[in-house]
């Protein structure tokens, strides 16, 4: 009897256990399948644990917002992945192509959004989750950036915009005998020509150990992005060589070099960081998020101040959140990005991370408009950056705008290092741009 039981019972238990686990798998798979079509299945299983991954390229200060999301979605667990800026977007492209590994929610920076808008099939259409109702809240140009090239799909929701300003060192301006208060400094440079003229005065005053600015690269980028058409035309064709605005920006940047205004430091390199802390240059182009970069170098409170950027408004950078098709829980993911980009969140992120909201309605909100930053001599950064973002003329950003910019920046650096004259560097930059496919 015992033997018999052993002979039959054990396999029966094993088989039923197997069947149960298979059933569990099937249930899981069913939930996933339901998720892709609108997630009615997911909703009908309240006990199911959902894991959402969020891929970012730096600290976006989202942690408290995740906690808030979990209050309304107790069954959702959020895991954040961060990678290096340069690798982040390349990784995403690889993941989309190979069909595996992409996070549920991905951050895509403004310069790269154009690389993805030609392929709406790889992302969920946020309209399907009702997020197109947010359109009226947004800056129009920021909203349009997240729409696919054929206009059929809403691919991303904007988080922040990089309203432009000019950061400067009041102490060095004082030494050079220039006005050092915010309004006075802003009045020095209504145009880029006036900016260079101010630079000449600064150089003539011979302030020991300091140049007028870091390097021409970021200035070139700002000038190009202020123009109505930049590197790409409306048909996403590269027009950098033929566009007189690009040439104008290039010539102005060469002038910055020729007049000896530049400290020959490329932005975001270690020597540039040292320069910020030690004050080897007096001005730098400053999108809202760069105030965080400055703070990280610990130059000391009040060392840097913020004035208006020459040439009116402008934008540099800013991010969109997108949902790759590989994600299994688009409904929850869409609800998460809705929360991460809503009014309260954007105000919180503005204060925490200097991320300028992309919702113009907030620009008149006292929490943003009257915000002053004690680290920058109580600069009214709310007012400065919002007026820059409002004054911006929207521009088409092409899929490889980053590579085009790099070609010109390399050219400017060759001029700066005395390896080529302006014409040779321009010709080689155009040749490099021509190689971009």
């Amino acid at each position, binding site marked *: 009897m015992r033997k018999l039981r052993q002979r039959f019972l054990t396999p029966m238990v094993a088989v039923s256990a197997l069947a149960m686990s298979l059933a569990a798998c099937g249930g899981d798979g069913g939930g996933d399948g339901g998720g892709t079509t609108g997630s009615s299945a997911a909703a009908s299983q309240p006990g199911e644990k959902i894991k959402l991954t969020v891929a970012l390229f730096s600290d976006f200060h989202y942690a408290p917002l995740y906690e808030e999301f979990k209050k309304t979605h107790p069954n959702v667990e959020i895991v954040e992945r961060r990678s290096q800026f*340069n690798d982040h977007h390349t990784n995403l492209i690889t993941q989309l192509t190979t069909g595996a590994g992409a996070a549920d929610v991905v951050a895509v920076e403004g310069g790269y959004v154009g690389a993805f808008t030609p392929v709406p099939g790889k992302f969920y259409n946020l309209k399907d989750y009702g997020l197109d109702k947010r359109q009226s809240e947004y800056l129009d140009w920021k909203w349009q950036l997240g729409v696919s090239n054929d206009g059929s799909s809403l691919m991303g929701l904007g988080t922040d915009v990089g309203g432009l300003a000019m950061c400067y060192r009041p102490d060095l301006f004082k030494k050079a005998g220039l006005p050092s208060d915010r309004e006075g400094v802003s009045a020095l440079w209504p145009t880029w020509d006036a900016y260079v003229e101010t630079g000449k005065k600064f150089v003539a005053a011979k302030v020991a150990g300091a140049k007028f600015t870091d390097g021409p690269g970021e200035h070139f980028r700002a000038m190009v992005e202020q123009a109505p058409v930049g590197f790409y035309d409306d048909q996403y064709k590269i027009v950098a060589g033929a566009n007189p605005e690009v040439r104008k920006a290039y010539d102005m940047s060469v002038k910055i070099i020729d007049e000896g205004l530049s400290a020959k430091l490329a932005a975001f390199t*270690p020597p540039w960081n*040292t320069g910020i802390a030690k004050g080897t240059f007096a001005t730098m182009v400053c999108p809202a998020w760069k105030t965080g970069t400055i703070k990280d170098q610990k130059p000391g409170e009040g060392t840097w101040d913020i004035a208006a950027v020459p040439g009116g408004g402008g934008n540099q950078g800013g991010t969109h959140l997108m949902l790759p098709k590989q994600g299994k829980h688009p409904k929850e993911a869409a609800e998460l990005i809705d929360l991460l980009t809503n009014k309260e969140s954007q105000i919180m992120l503005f204060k925490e991370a200097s991320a300028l909201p992309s919702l113009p309605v907030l620009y008149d909100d006292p929490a943003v408009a009257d915000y002053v930053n004690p680290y920058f001599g109580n600069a009214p950064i709310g007012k400065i950056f919002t007026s820059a973002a409002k004054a911006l003329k929207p521009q088409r950003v092409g899929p490889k705008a980053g590579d085009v910019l790099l070609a010109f*920046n390399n050219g400017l650096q060759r001029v700066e*290092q005395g390896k080529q004259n302006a014409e040779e560097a321009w010709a080689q930059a155009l040749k490099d741009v021509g190689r971009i496919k």
Partner: protein
Amino acid sequence: MATRAPDRLAVPPNRPVRSRRLRRHLVHQLDVKGSPYAYVAPFFLLFSAFGLFPLAYTAWVSLHEWTLLSDEQTFVGLDNFRTLLADDYFWNATFNTLSIGVLSTAPQLLLAIWLAHLLNRPLRAQTFFRITLLLPNVTSVVAVVVIFSQLFGRDFGMINWMLSWFGVGGVAWNEGVATSHAAISVMIMWRWTGYNTLIFLAAMQAVPRELYEAATLDGASGFTQLRKITIPMIRPTTVFVVITSTIGAMQILAEPLLFGSYSISGGPDRQYQTLSLFIYENFTKLDFGYASAISWMMFAFIVLVAGVNYLLTRRAKGGLT
């Protein structure tokens, strides 16, 4: 033994016994002939999956106009290779790779042999010195390059600060071709000299002591002994080290990339863009066909350069006579 046993049986073998013998014989044959292959199979399976397949697939990709996000890839034959051979930037990268390779490898190997020679004598705290030699090698390459980039900084670098004592003004190390190559070579040497020293040291310890004793009795100096005994005796190791260093030098990526603060063009004038960096640049531009073509050219170069070095090192140091 067991297979021989039936021979000694006087009984004429009937059918079943014969067939059993045959089967046993076959199994034995299979074991002798087949098992060694089974034992080495895991390596070759892994190598096929992670070495051979990517190699072949890269060759296939290199014949296409291959971009990631579009779903169709056009076959273009050898077009990528044709473009490559006419590309100034490719030859510039090749020159940089060879230049950095020679600048870092040649002095490094001489230094390693010399250090190994010094360590090959009876020393107090021998293990301490040997471990110290290996330390630079276990340091993360990122840390090494970040520190060295600070040392070679133009405005606040320590090397320029020391040069200023001798009246040499601020050298912009990463602007010039020669200066940037020198700086990168120093980083590579710092990391790999100790590692190669230990390999040389291991070889030197296998050289019979009697040779040195005889040479000492004959009145040969330390340097003569190094030249006439040690170097000829460790020739196979030298060949090995030269080849591995050559391959390593041809694939330099992290040092120039980080030295240029993540500049994928290896400086604005491509003054220190190596072949690996050139591949990396084209991969990040998502031009996969072209990047794969460069990878294959680089593979060919490595085989060529390693072969030439092998012949040179074999010929240069004749056997001990």
